[in-house]
């Protein structure tokens, strides 16, 4: 058991347990802050998958942007929002949640079955990429290559995403503006 594996299991445990806490907690504020822990743990998992640039992007965009947006929306929608949450019943497992638990657990079992049957480390293209030294090894620098690829091979999706991002931001500003009459 190497150090990387120990770190992987630690990160995986943090990610899964904080996601389950988000699912189980009654309070909206607690679930938002545990979601923060989940995102940080996911960034750690990206580092262990040898994708350091994606990990930094995850921290900058998700933790810096998305989470602050969610907190804003939660603070702007006032006290009645919290009151709706408070009046739910306090039992841990209620009958109304049983179908959701069944669906999630059965879906998890199906996915586990597929993952184990696929036998991923023996796939042809993965074996070929390891044999031709196309796999990323610890210590190799990938950021230069990502930048070059983004500006050459993936230029069209990059531009499409940038236009879509601009449209989404204009649309969000338009949706949340004040009505001129009121």
């Amino acid at each position, binding site marked *: 058991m190497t150090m990387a594996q120990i770190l992987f299991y630690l990160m995986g445990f943090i990610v899964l347990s904080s996601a389950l806490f988000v699912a189980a907690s009654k309070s909206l504020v607690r679930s938002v802050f545990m979601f923060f822990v989940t995102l940080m743990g996911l960034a750690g998992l990206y580092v262990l998958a040898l994708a350091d640039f994606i990990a930094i992007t995850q921290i900058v965009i998700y933790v810096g942007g998305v989470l602050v947006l969610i907190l804003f929306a939660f603070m*702007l929608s006032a006290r009645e929002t919290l009151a709706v949450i408070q009046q739910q019943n306090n039992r841990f497992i209620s009958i109304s949640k049983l179908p959701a638990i069944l669906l999630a657990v059965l879906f998890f079992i199906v996915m586990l079955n597929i993952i184990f049957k696929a036998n991923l480390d023996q796939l042809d293209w993965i074996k070929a990429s390891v044999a031709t030294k196309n796999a990323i090894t610890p210590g190799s620098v990938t950021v230069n290559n990502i930048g070059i690829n*983004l500006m050459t091979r993936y230029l069209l999706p990059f531009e499409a995403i940038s236009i879509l991002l601009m449209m989404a931001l204009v649309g969000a500003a338009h949706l949340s503006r004040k009505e001129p009459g009121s």
Partner: protein
Amino acid sequence: MISLTDFLIVSAGLFCAGVYIILTKHNAIQVLIGIELMLNAAILNLVAFGKYDRINNSGQVFALFAIVLAAATTAVALAIILNVYKRYKTIDPGKVDGLKD
């Protein structure tokens, strides 16, 4: 070395937590958090497979695109949630059941 199967198991667990949150929560913001969890599970898969493509970086680049798209989605969804709150005074998705007027 960490095998691909481990990454996919973690991502399957995240996805199922997202499914559970979407099905049970009575609050649009928490439903949005569930959707973000499912998106993150998909991004984790992309990154884990992207390890085996050093030259083209396809997995990592599309993980970047997915992260940016998730940010755009969140901005629009939160604007919609604020508008719904202004009109209905609640953000329970089960109680928002009217069309225009």
